[in-house]
Structure formats: structure tokens, C-alpha cells
């Protein structure tokens, strides 16, 4: 039996397919880590994942799983689970048949039933086991696909845009599920997405994949930055990452219920009022354009009003990004005209306000 948790290293990986190529990809994923590969929508991330799974032959480089060189191992010997964006369930098998597929010839018949039931309970799909994949909703189908990949206890789980085909409500629920399952099983996971908030909510670390057009038909992908979510959006390595990630106020905090149905998200001692169902450890984001600046304290309907100091003013043509240290630091977007009229300078005392409903908790 191979060890259950695997660290994964990719060294100088190059892949060349008809429409896409990957250049010099290097990744280090620790055992038990939840690692996110973030990049714009395109074919590149899927190609990278399929190469790690052994479905494409790399041109150069090595792939190591739990210290073992698997670069030339066939996919069935790697112990890597794969979940596609649109589930890829076997339409001719029942849900139970789909989940049991990978267990055949590995465990005894009676054990198969037990393990299918156990993983069904973990993912909350026991009641679907006799159904056909065609009758499932998107969220149900993705749970089945997850169960099918997890039931064989892979050393590494690859998730290729697992939430992108779902409607927003299901997506949020399944995103939380993914976090919970990872905490429970501890499977080393690489998750690919184009959604930054999804990456922040789930990833211990994020790698940003950039795709460029080379020639008429071909695109090329390379990793441009690897780091914790905070590092990625606070210190983007280059213009591409900065533009892709955007300027954001994202904080990690703790959400607790407060009076009148609000939640208070505590970030570094600062209490931010928000409207959300979530509680406990969360992320909160406020868009820079949703924050209003005042010279004087002001009574308004905005639930959140704080005093701070301007630490940075960044001119972007017609608009200006003003960074205000409360702390933490908030970035606000204002027009150049407001900057002039309010006579804002670095070091000025200033008040900011934003509505509880402008806070997105995830």
C-alpha cells in the first residue's frame, strides 16, 4: 500500500500539444496542502493537470509524487484522482457503479459496498446511490465525481475547475464542502480555477498561471508567481498578476452574530458589520469603489465607519487609489477631482464608510 499523503513536485515541466504548450513549470506542493492554480480561462490549466495525472506525455521535466519519480508511469499506477469541471460521470453506470469503478479489482466485493456507502455519507449523497448520472443536478453530479475520485484514497487529488459549471448558490455550498472534506481527509489537493475569491477561500498557497498567444493557433502557459493568497494580492510579482487579481480589500477574520441579524467580522481587532450566513473563520472583501471618504465624522446609513490615516496615494489617470491605514489597510477608489477638492495628502486624517451589504463574506 502506498502512503496516503503525497507531496508533489514538478521540475522544469514542458508540454507541447497541438494548440497549447507549457514551458518550464515548477511546483512544490506539500503533503496535505490545498494548492490552487489560478489563471484566466483557457486550455492551459487543464493541460497541466492532465499531464500531472499522466494523460499527456511531457516533452521535458520531471514529476515527483511522495518522492517517487512518476514522470513516465501510466495514469493507473499514479494514485492521482481527477475531477473534471463537467463531472465526466460514466453515463451507463449508476451513481454507486460510478463510485465503485475504481474499487473493482482492488478490494473485495463486500468491502466495495461498505466503502461506497462511507464515502456517500461523507459527501451527503447516500440517497442518490441508485440513480443514473443523467438525472442528477450539477451540484449532485460534482459530489458524485468527488466521491468517485476520493473513494480509492488517492495520494493526490486534482480538481479541474470543479465549481465553474455550477450556479452561484451551489458553488458556494460546494466550495465550503471542499474545504470541509479536505480538513477531514487531508488529501493533498491541487485545485485549478479562474476565480480569485475561490482561490483565496480554499488555497493554502496559490500559483498564478499566465497564458500568452504565440503564433496564430497556439497559446503558451507559464507560472508567474507562487505564494499565499495574501502575498499574491498584496505583493503581485508583476503587472499581469496585479491586473488579473485586481486591487482588492480582502481580509481574513472571524464572523460572529451581532444584533439585528448582522454579523460582525473581526479583522485585527477591527469589527466590520456584514450581511452573511457564514460564521467562524471567513474571508471578507470590500470593493475599493464601494468605500466613501469623508474629511469630518459624519452620520450616515453605512454600518461601517472608521477613522484612519492616508499612507499611499497612487495616481492611475482619471482615478486614484488611496490606501488608508485603520489598521488594517483599506484601498479606496476615488476620482482625481475628489482628490483635489478634498485636498488629500499622504499623512492626512480621514474617515471611511461602507455599507454592511457591500462586504462580501466567503
Amino acid at each position, binding site marked *: 500500500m502506498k502512503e496516503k499523503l503525497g507531496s508533489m513536485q514538478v521540475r522544469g515541466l514542458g508540454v507541447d500539444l497541438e494548440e497549447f504548450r507549457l514551458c518550464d513549470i515548477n511546483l512544490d506542493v506539500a503533503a496535505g496542502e490545498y494548492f490552487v492554480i489560478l489563471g484566466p480561462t483557457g486550455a492551459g490549466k487543464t493541460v497541466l493537470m492532465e499531464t500531472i495525472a499522466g494523460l499527456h506525455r511531457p516533452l521535458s521535466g520531471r514529476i515527483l509524487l511522495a518522492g517517487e519519480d512518476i514522470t513516465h508511469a501510466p495514469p493507473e499506477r499514479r494514485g492521482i484522482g481527477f475531477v473534471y469541471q463537467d463531472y465526466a460521470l460514466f453515463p*451507463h453506470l449508476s451513481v454507486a457503479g460510478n463510485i465503485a469503478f475504481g474499487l473493482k479489482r*482492488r478490494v473485495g466485493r463486500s468491502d466495495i459496498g461498505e466503502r461506497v456507502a462511507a464515502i456517500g455519507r461523507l459527501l451527503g449523497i447516500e440517497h442518490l446511490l441508485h440513480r443514473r448520472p443523467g438525472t442528477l443536478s450539477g451540484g449532485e453530479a460534482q459530489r458524485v465525481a468527488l466521491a468517485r475520485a476520493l473513494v480509492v484514497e488517492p495520494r493526490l487529488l486534482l480538481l479541474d475547475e470543479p465549481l465553474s459549471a455550477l450556479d452561484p448558490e451551489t458553488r458556494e455550498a460546494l466550495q465550503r464542502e471542499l474545504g470541509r472534506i479536505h480538513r477531514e481527509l487531508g488529501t493533498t489537493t491541487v485545485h485549478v480555477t479562474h476565480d480569485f475569491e475561490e482561490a483565496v477561500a480554499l488555497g493554502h498557497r496559490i500559483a498564478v498561471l499566465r497564458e500568452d498567444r504565440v503564433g496564430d493557433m497556439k497559446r503558451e502557459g507559464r507560472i508567474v508567481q507562487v505564494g499565499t493568497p495574501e502575498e499574491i494580492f498584496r505583493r503581485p510579482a508583476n503587472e499581469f498578476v496585479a491586473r488579473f487579481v485586481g486591487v482588492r480589500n480582502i481580509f481574513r477574520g472571524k464572523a460572529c452574530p451581532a444584533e439585528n441579524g448582522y454579523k460582525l467580522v473581526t479583522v485585527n481587532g477591527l469589527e466590520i458589520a456584514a450581511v452573511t450566513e457564514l460564521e467562524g473563520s471567513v474571508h471578507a472583501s470590500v470593493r475599493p469603489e464601494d468605500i466613501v471618504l469623508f474629511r469630518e465624522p459624519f452620520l450616515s446609513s453605512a454600518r461601517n465607519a472608521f477613522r484612519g490615516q492616508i499612507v499611499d496615494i497612487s495616481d492611475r489617470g482619471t482615478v486614484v487609489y488611496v490606501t488608508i491605514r485603520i489598521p488594517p489597510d483599506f484601498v479606496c477608489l476615488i476620482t482625481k477631482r475628489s482628490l483635489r477638492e478634498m485636498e488629500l495628502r499622504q499623512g492626512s486624517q480621514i474617515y471611511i464608510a461602507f455599507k454592511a451589504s457591500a462586504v462580501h463574506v466567503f
Partner: protein
Amino acid sequence: MRALFANKMQASFVVLGLLLILFVAWPLLRTITATGPVVLWQTLLDDEVRSSIGLTFYASFIATAIAFLCGVPLAYLLARVDFPGKRLIEGIIDVPIVVPHSAAGIALLMVFGRRTLLGQAFGLFGLKFVSAAPGIVIAMLFVSLSFLVNAAREGFEAVDPRLERVARTLGASPWRAFWGVSFPLAWRSILSGMILMWARGLSEFGAVVILAYHPMVAPVLLYERFESFGLRYSRPVAALMILICLATFVVLRLTAGRKRSRV
């Protein structure tokens, strides 16, 4: 039904199309109805007729089995892999549909005849093709394999290759991914191709008659009766064959084609 006659254009299309349907159905019906059930029964009891029908079914079945064995793997490759010369291979598969079947018979004779290398090699194993059942089988195989290969290829093309990839990541070898996923999903197409091929093999005359006039398959027997005794004596045999072929075809189509929308 009303949708058919939605406007004048469609109504005129209905009339034109109906002409073609009548053209097929009328002669078949006429042949069957012109022969009384008693005569049909007597024809069925005719040893020569029965053994030729049996031979026809059997030979076409063997041809279909051979095509299944080699054609399904070929169809899978054509559906999944891009390789140089693929278009040429696809063309070769379609050639038997366009060459005159008597010419196909001559061509087979050139390779499998008594004095050819292949003919003599098979002769060592006691297998001869000219004027023998194996000759009938290869003639049927040659002229009808396109149906099976093309149907199977379309069937495999309709299977998402990612299903096979997922199967591989779940620990399945390429063989098990094929038998556990691709084959069952393409099975309806393959089966309908087999039925089409088998039916096409049953009705083959041109290629068979050149390789093996004897033993006589049903179409050759029919031709011989017509040549020797005329319309009156060949008609019951024709009616019987039409009935048997129609019946088997319908039964097979019904059992195999319940969910043809996928194909």
C-alpha cells in the same frame, strides 16, 4: 400527422416522398401476396431452399464476427487517434461500397484463388475458398465490412475521451477502460452496424457468385431457379427470402434499436 401537411410545400414533398416509398414497398408486397401460404410452406420444406438459406445466414454471421474482431479495434483507432494516412485508411474502408460487387469477386479471386500464394497457404490447412463456404464468407465480408466499421467509429466518436481518462486515473488499464467504458457506451452503434452488415451480407450476390456458385447461397439459388424455370418457380423462393429477411431485420432492429437517439 397534421404537421406533415403544414403548408403546400410540405404537402408536395409528402407526395414526392410517397412515390419513393411506394416504389420500394409495392414490389415487395406484390411478391409476397402473389404467393399463397401453402406454396410458401412447401417452399420452406424444400431441402435445397432450406440449406441455402441456412448457409446464407451462417456465412454472413461468420463474416460479421470476423469484421467485429478486427473492425471494432480499427474503428476505435480511427475515432481516437490522429495518424498520418488516416484519410487513406478511411477511404479504403469505404471502397467496397463503390466498386461493382462482381469486380470485388474477381479481385478476391486474384488473391484467394486456387493457384495464388494465399490460396495455397490456406489450402495447407484444408481451407479452400473457390466453390466453398469460406469463399462465400470472404465475399460477404469484403462487400459489407464498411457498414460495421463506420457505425462503430461513429459510436466511439460519440464517447467523450475524458471518460476514458477518468477511468485511467481510477486505476483502470487501457484494456479495462476500453471494456468498462468505451465499449459499453459505443455498443448500440456497434450492434446496429453489425445488424446492417449481417443484412447486407445476406443479400450479396455479385461477389459471392464469382467465388462460389456452389454451395448456393439464397440469392444465387433464386437466380438459378429464375434462369432455369422462370418467374413462376422463382417467385415463391423470392417471397420466402423477403419475408425471412424482413422478419429478422425488424426483430433485430427492435431489440437493438430501442434507444437509437444516442447513435
